[in-house]
């Protein structure tokens, strides 16, 4: 339990980790993750709107992994790490970091963009929701793993909210 694993992410109780979830890529499990995140963000100290924002961002990021990284296959592995991070220089309070890991093919970062919002059409909203909800959103390829890193600070700076 206490050793660092190959992904450089340490298990429960080291290094600010609050919760780790492992699930398969079945959309039926999305509500389970939301159920955990709604409570965890409350325990962490977020306001009700911020709890909904973080839960929504994680839900949409998982949806994207299921649809795009795994092409709808429901039996593929997903890991979700939730941890407390120290404030950045520009932030006054702790942050809540979610790291989502999948084993799908590498993502072309230039494809990670939502559509323009001035059309009325279905789809292309997920990344908008994620970026609008979080203070930091990053994608990284580590070995065979796609890592999406989402961070929200307890008292987000006004500048990071205007995205």
């Amino acid at each position, binding site marked *: 339990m206490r050793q660092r694993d190959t992904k450089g992410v340490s298990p429960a109780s080291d290094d600010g980790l609050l919760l780790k979830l492992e699930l398969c890529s079945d959309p039926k499990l999305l*509500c389970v993750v*939301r159920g955990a995140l709604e409570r965890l963000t409350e325990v962490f100290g977020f306001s009700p709107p911020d709890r909904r924002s973080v839960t*929504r961002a994680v839900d949409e990021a998982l*949806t994207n992994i299921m649809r795009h990284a795994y092409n709808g296959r429901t039996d593929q592995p997903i890991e979700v790490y939730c941890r407390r991070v120290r404030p950045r220089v520009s932030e006054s309070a702790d942050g809540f970091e979610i790291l989502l890991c999948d084993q799908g093919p590498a993502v072309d970062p230039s494809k990670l963009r939502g559509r323009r919002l001035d059309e009325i059409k279905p789809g292309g909203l997920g990344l908008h929701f994620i970026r609008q*909800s979080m203070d930091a959103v990053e994608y990284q390829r580590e070995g065979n793993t796609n890592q999406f890193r989402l961070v929200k600070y307890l008292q987000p700076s006004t500048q990071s909210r205007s995205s």
Partner: protein
Amino acid sequence: MQISARHTDNTTIFDVTGDIDLANSPEVRKALLREVREKRTPRVVMNLSKVRYIDSSGVASLVEGLKASRDVNSRFILFGLSPSAREVLQLSRLLKIFEVYDNEDQALSS
């Protein structure tokens, strides 16, 4: 998620219970498009008062319902939006595109 229909006059009311997400938004889409395109119901009303959460795929299903109803010149109405459902339409810049009411009475007398 459960979806069931009530029919009155020219109107169908869909009562949805539970979250709308990737696991069931195709079901919502199907029910909506059947009602709007095939049955040509003049007014389709979504009762969302028992829906706590709608994800982007759920929003996409609602947008498809709206577009289909515009195609056939019928009405597509939402009521009973939770804080989260309201937020998600706001984030999508769709809150002003949909006909949205607070409750069933207002939706039906509109």
